[in-house]
C-alpha cells in the first residue's frame, strides 16, 4: 500500500489550524489568525517522495463568491506534487470519502498536472517563467485537468514566498531528465504490486502470448501471425517487441526499412476483415532509392491483396485528415474556456458560450474523428474490406482512429479491462510518444510537441464503478462520444453515399448495446463532455441534479435487486434468517451534485447561482423589442 510520510511536526513548523472563515476580508482573517490554537496538519508523502520547499500562512481562496473566502494553510512542493495543507477533510461524509482519490488529495497538484502559472502583481495577472525579479502577491495555478488554484501570499514571509514560488516554477518548468521523473524513485521505493487476478487483468501486449490471445479472441489467427522479430528491439525501438503481421509476410521484410512499410495488424472484425496500420517509408530524393521503395511496397501490397486477404482500402491519415497542429490549436483554445478564474468571468463568457465553443473548433475535431472512424467501420463491416491506416510514424492519428474503431465495433473494448487493454495495445505498445506529446520532460516550450491526442478517445470514457462499466460506457459512447460533424471535406461521392447509408441504416434500427455502436455526429448531438470539463466550476454545478442522479438511482436499484436475489437464494437453501442489509453505495443520492464525484467539497451553500452579466444586444430585433405586447399589426407577413 501507499506509505505515509509525515512532515510538519517539528518545532516551530506547525501549520496554522485550518480556519474556515466566511465573508471576511483577508485582513480580518490575518488579525484573528494568531489567536487560534494551532493544530497539526500532515503532509502525506508517497514512498520515495521528498519535500522540497514550503511556505506557511498561505491563503487558499475558495473559488466561488468572487474569491472572498479563503483558508489559511501551508503550501508545499515535493518532487511529485504541489500540496496545500489546511483543509479540513474530516468534513467529508462517508459517501464522499469513498470516492476520494487516495493518491492525489483535493488540494494536491502533481507537478505534471501544472499547465500555466500566473502571478498577480498589483491586481494584474501575468504568466510566470524562469527567474523572477519581483515576487507576486498571489499565485494562480491552472492545471491540465482544468482546476484553477488561487494562493494568496500577502501574509507569507518574504523569504518563504521566494522559496516556494521559485521552487514551484523550477520544478514545473525546467527541463527534466527522464531518470529524474518521480515515477522512478516511487517505483524503487514502493513495493511491486502485481495484478492479482490473471483472468481479469489488463492485457499488456508485452509478450507473444498476449498477442496470440488477442488474435484468438478476434479470430484473426487464421490470416495473421504474431512475430518476435523485434525481440530486444533489434529491428526498431519504435515498435513493440512483439506484434502481428499477415501470415504470408516474410519476416525479413520487417528488417528492410526498420519496420516501416510493413502492414501491422490492429484488430480483426467478426467477418475476417482486419484493421491494419503502416508507417510510411522514409522520404527519399534519388530515383534509385525510390525505385527500391516502390518495388518493396509493390511486394507488400501483392501479399496483402491476394486471397485469403480481402481488398485493402488505404486510408492516408497524414494527408487526408486532421493535422496534429489543428488538434493542438483547437485544444488550447478549448481548454481556456474552462479555466475560469472567477464568477464574473464565468457569466461574462456565458452569454457568448456557443460561439466561443465553435471558435475553438474542438467539437468539430471530435466530430471529424468520429466520422473517420465510422467510415472505417463501414469499410470493415459493410464492404468486407481490409483497411490500412497510413501515417508517417503510425503512432498518432493511427492510435486515435484505430482505437475509436475498436470501441465502436468490439464490445470487449467497452468493458473496463478491455478498454485498458485497448489503450495498452494501441497507444502504449502502438508507440504513441506520450513523453513528447505531453511534454513530460519540458524539453522546450515548442507547442508542436504537445498534442492532446488521447483526449478525443477519452471523451468516450468515464470512471468505472463496481463492474458497471459496460452499461455505463455503452451509454456514454452513445451520448457523450456520440456527439460530433463539420464540412465533410472527404473523399468521393460514392464513399459519402456508402457512409450515409451505413450510418442512417444503423441509426434507424434498435440498438444492440453489445454489438456495433455508432455515435450520432450531427451538430446538435455533439455536446461538451460536462463531467470532465465543467467539474471544477462551482457556478456550473447542479445541486442534487445532473446525470449522477439517475445513475445513482440505477445503482441503488441494482443493489436492491441483488439483495433480493440473495434472499431468494437463502430461502432456497432454507437458511431461515435473513441477512443484514449491506451498506448502500450511495445513500444520499438526492444530495449529490452534478459534479460528483469530482468536486466534493464545493457544495456549501444551497443558494442558487444567478447570472451576473446582462443581456446581449438583439441586433436586428431591436425594433421588435420596443413593440408593445398587444400591438396589432396585421400587415406583417
Amino acid at each position, binding site marked *: 500500500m501507499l506509505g505515509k510520510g509525515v512532515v510538519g511536526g517539528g518545532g516551530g513548523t506547525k501549520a496554522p489550524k485550518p480556519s474556515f472563515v466566511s465573508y471576511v476580508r483577508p485582513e480580518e482573517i490575518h488579525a484573528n489568525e494568531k489567536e487560534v490554537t494551532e493544530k497539526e496538519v500532515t503532509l502525506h508523502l508517497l514512498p520515495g517522495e521528498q519535500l522540497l520547499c514550503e511556505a506557511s500562512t498561505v491563503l487558499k481562496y475558495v473559488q466561488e463568491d468572487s474569491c472572498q473566502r479563503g483558508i489559511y494553510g501551508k503550501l508545499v512542493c515535493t518532487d511529485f506534487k504541489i500540496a496545500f495543507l489546511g483543509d479540513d477533510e474530516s468534513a467529508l461524509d462517508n459517501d464522499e470519502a469513498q470516492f476520494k482519490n487516495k493518491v492525489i488529495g483535493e488540494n494536491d497538484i502533481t507537478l505534471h498536472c501544472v499547465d500555466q502559472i500566473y502571478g498577480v502583481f498589483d491586481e494584474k495577472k501575468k504568466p510566470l517563467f524562469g527567474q523572477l525579479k519581483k515576487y507576486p502577491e498571489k499565485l494562480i495555478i491552472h492545471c491540465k485537468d482544468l482546476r484553477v488554484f488561487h494562493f494568496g501570499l500577502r501574509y507569507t514571509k518574504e523569504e518563504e514566498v521566494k522559496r516556494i514560488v521559485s521552487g514551484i516554477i523550477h520544478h514545473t518548468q525546467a527541463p527534466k531528465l527522464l531518470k529524474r521523473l518521480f515515477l522512478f524513485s516511487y517505483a524503487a521505493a514502493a513495493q511491486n504490486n502485481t495484478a492479482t487476478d490473471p483472468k481479469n487483468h489488463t492485457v499488456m501486449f508485452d509478450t507473444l502470448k498476449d498477442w496470440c490471445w488477442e488474435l484468438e479472441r478476434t479470430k484473426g489467427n487464421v490470416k495473421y501471425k504474431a512475430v518476435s522479430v523485434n525481440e530486444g528491439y533489434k529491428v526498431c525501438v519504435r515498435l513493440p517487441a512483439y506484434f502481428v503481421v499477415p501470415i504470408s509476410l516474410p519476416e525479413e521484410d520487417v528488417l528492410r526499412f526498420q519496420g516501416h512499410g510493413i502492414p501491422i495488424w490492429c484488430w480483426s472484425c467478426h467477418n475476417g476483415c482486419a484493421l491494419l496500420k503502416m508507417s510510411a517509408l522514409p522520404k527519399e530524393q534519388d530515383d534509385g532509392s525510390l525505385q527500391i521503395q516502390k518495388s518493396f511496397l509493390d511486394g507488400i501490397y501483392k501479399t496483402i491483396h491476394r486471397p485469403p486477404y480481402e481488398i485493402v482500402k488505404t486510408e492516408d491519415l497524414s494527408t487526408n485528415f486532421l493535422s496534429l497542429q489543428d488538434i493542438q490549436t483547437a485544444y488550447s483554445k478549448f481548454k481556456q474556456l474552462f479555466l475560469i478564474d472567477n464568477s464574473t468571468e464565468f457569466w461574462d463568457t456565458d452569454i457568448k458560450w456557443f460561439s466561443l465553443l465553435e471558435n475553438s473548433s474542438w467539437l468539430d475535431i471530435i466530430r471529424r474523428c468520429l466520422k473517420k472512424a465510422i467510415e472505417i467501420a463501414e469499410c470493415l463491416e459493410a464492404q468486407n474490406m481490409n483497411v490500412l491506416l497510413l501515417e508517417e510514424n503510425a503512432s498518432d492519428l493511427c492510435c486515435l482512429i484505430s482505437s475509436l474503431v475498436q470501441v465502436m465495433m468490439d464490445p470487449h473494448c467497452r468493458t473496463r479491462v478491455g478498454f485498458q487493454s485497448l489503450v495498452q495495445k494501441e497507444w502504449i505498445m502502438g508507440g504513441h510518444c506520450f513523453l513528447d506529446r505531453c511534454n513530460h520532460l519540458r524539453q522546450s516550450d515548442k507547442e508542436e510537441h504537445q498534442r492532446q491526442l488521447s483526449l478525443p478517445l477519452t471523451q468516450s470514457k468515464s470512471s468505472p464503478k463496481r463492474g458497471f462499466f459496460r452499461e455505463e460506457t455503452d451509454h456514454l459512447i452513445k451520448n457523450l462520444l456520440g456527439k460530433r460533424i463539420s464540412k465533410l471535406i472527404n473523399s468521393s461521392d460514392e464513399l459519402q453515399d456508402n457512409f450515409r447509408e451505413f450510418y442512417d441504416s444503423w441509426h434507424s434500427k434498435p440498438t444492440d448495446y453489445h454489438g456495433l455502436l455508432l455515435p450520432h455526429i450531427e451538430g446538435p448531438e455533439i455536446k461538451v463532455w460536462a463531467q470532465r470539463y465543467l467539474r471544477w466550476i462551482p457556478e456550473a454545478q447542479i445541486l442534487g*441534479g445532473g446525470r449522477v442522479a*439517475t445513475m445513482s438511482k440505477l445503482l441503488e436499484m441494482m443493489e436492491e435487486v441483488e439483495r433480493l436475489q440473495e434472499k431468494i437464494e437463502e430461502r432456497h437453501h432454507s437458511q431461515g434468517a435473513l441477512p443484514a442489509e449491506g451498506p448502500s453505495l450511495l445513500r444520499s443520492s438526492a444530495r449529490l451534485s452534478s459534479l460528483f464525484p469530482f468536486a466534493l467539497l464545493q457544495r456549501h451553500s*444551497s443558494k442558487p447561482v444567478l447570472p451576473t452579466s446582462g443581456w446581449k444586444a438583439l441586433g436586428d430585433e431591436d425594433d421588435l423589442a420596443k413593440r408593445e405586447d398587444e400591438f396589432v399589426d396585421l400587415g406583417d407577413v
Partner: protein
Amino acid sequence: MLPRQPARGGGRRAVARGGAAAGGGPWRGRSGAREASSLATAVAPGPRVSSMASAPTSKYNSHSLENESIKRTSRDGVNWDLSEAVPRLPGETRITDKEVIYICPFNGPIKGRVYITNYRLYLRSLETDSALILDVPLGVISRIEKMGGATSRGENSYGLDITCKDMRNLRFALKQEGHSRRDMFEILTRYAFPLAHSLPIFAFLNEEKFNVDGWTVYNPVEEYRRQGLPNHHWRITFINKCYELCDTYPALLVVPYRASDDDLRRVATFRSRNRIPVLSWIHPENKTVIVRCSQPLVGMSGKRNKDDEKYLDVIRETNRQISKLTIYDARPNVNAVANKATGGGYESDDAYHNAELFFLDIHNIHVMRESLKKVKDIVYPNVEESHWLSSLESTHWLEHIKLVLTGAIQVADRVSSGKSSVLVHCSDGWDRTAQLTSLAMLMLDSFYRSIEGFEILVQKEWISFGHKFASRIGHGDKNHADADRSPIFLQFIDCVWQMSKQFPTAFEFNERFLITILDHLYSCRFGTFLYNCESAREKQKVTERTVSLWSLINSNKDKFKNPFYTKEINRVLYPVASMRHLELWVNYYIRWNPRIKQQQPNPVEQRYVELLALRDEYIQRLEELQLASSAKLPDPSTSPAGPSQMMPHVRTHF
C-alpha cells in the same frame, strides 16, 4: 362516405405490398422501442434501396399517441376496405381523400393517399418500399399556400405548401388537371380554420370518452386549501364571481384579509385591465407569498394611487416581515419606461416606499416569436451543419430561456429564503408573469412536479389567470401573421424541460408528457387550451361541451411517468441558468428529422425499467416463498403451494 371505386382498388394493392414491406403489420404496426413520442410523426422510411425493403420498417411508424381511442368505423362489412382505414376519433368525420405526392424533405417525393377529416390530415404511402404515414391534426396548420401556377413546369412544382405550428412544413404535389388542388386547398382551409367559416372547432365535435374526467383535476378551492388558505392574512373572495371586477381573471381570487372588496375595486382602476395583485402561492413555513398582477397605470404624468400603494403595503405585511416587498417587473427597464407612454409603467420608489423594484429583462412576445422562427430556420428541414453552435446562438432562443429561468430563480429564492414577499408583473400579467410565477412555483413546491400537480399548475397559473391561448396560438384562425401569436407557453414548457433535464429524478412526468401537452396545445382535440380566459370559456360551456386533455393523460398515466421519479417534499430546485447547461430541446424542435432522432427511451432508463420489473418479480417471489414456508410449518399437508412452487422459475399468482 363510400369510397370511390378506382381509389379503392389501387389502395388495396398498395396495402398488400405495404403490409409485406412492413413485416406483415398493418398500418398500426410499430415496435415499442422506437415508438415516437409525438402525436403526429412524419415517418421516415428506411433508406430507399431494395435491400432495405424487407427490413421491418414499420417501427418508424408512429401515429397518434392514442391508438386505443381510434375506432375503425366499420361500414357494411362487405365494402370494408383496409386501405381506407384511417384512425378515426368518435365524432370525427371523413371529408375527402386524394392521391398526392408528398414531398418529404428527408426522403424525397413519395406517392401517397391523403385522407382529410374534420380533425386530421392523414397520409399513407402508396409505395412499396416506404411505410410512411403522416397523421397531422388540422389544428397545427398555421398557413396553407398554393405553390406553382398553371404554367409551372418541373416535377412536383404544383401543389400545396402547409406551414405547421409545430416546427414543420408539409408539401404536397398535385395534378394540374382537374381541380384537385383547389378542392384540397378549400377543404383544408375550411377545416383547419373553422372560425373563418363559422364552423365549430373540432373539440366541440369530439365524442371521446375517458374513464376519468380531466375537468375535475383543478378545483381552485381545493388547491388553495392545500396551500393552507384561507388563513389569518389571506381570504378567498368571490368578488369576481361573474367576472365583473376583471374579465380576464378567474372567478375565485385570494387577496389580503385586510383588503376589503371596495379596496379591491379601487385598486383595479389603477392596474392594467383591472388585473389586481392576487396571491399565487404562499410559503408553508415562512408565509411569504408570490403575488401576480399587471402593470400600474402610471402613465407619462406619473399618476399615483393611494389605494394601490396601501394595498401593496398590506401584502408586504402579511408575513409579518419588516423587509420591503420585492417587485419583479419581468420587462427590460427601457420597455417599462416606454410603456408609460401608453398609460402603463412601473412602481416608482417615491410612491412605493416599502417596495424594491427589479427588472428581469425578459423580452416581449414579438421578440420570442421571431426567435422561434429563427430556430425553425436552422433546424427545418435541414439542421444547420457547418456552424451549428453560432447559428443556435444567433437565434437567441436559449438566451431567452436563460433569462426566464433566471427571473424565476430570483422569485423562488426570495420567497424560499423568507427575505420578502414577491410581486410579479409584466405589462398585462398574462405572458411573462405566468411564466415566472409558474416556474417559481415549480421550483418551490414539489407538488407541482407530479403529473396532477403540473396539470393544476397549468390550469391555475395559465388557463384560469387568462394567458391568451386563443390569441397566442390562433386556434382555428386563419390569420397566420397575427402579431398576437407568440410561443410563450411553449417557452414555458421548454423551461420545464430544461429543469427536468437538470433534475432527472425530480419530476413525475417524462418528456413525452410535455410533448403531448404541446401537441394538444395546437390540435384542437381538447377544450383545455381554447379561448383566452375563464369568462369566455364559461360562456362557451367548454367544460360541458369538450373533453379535457387531462382526461386523456390521466386515464393512461403510465405512459407519461418518469421511472426515476423520487418524491421529495420541501426540496427547492434551483436549475443552473447557464448556457453551459441549457440545451436545444432536440426531441421537440428537431423531432421530424429522422437523422436526429434520439434513442427512446435512453439506455439508462431502459435498464432501470428492467431492474424495476425484476425487483417487483423478486419481491413477489419472496412473498410466495414466505407464504409457502409459513404455511408448511404448521401443517405441510394443507399447504396451498406444491413443492414445485419452491422452484425459482415458477411464478404462480396466489
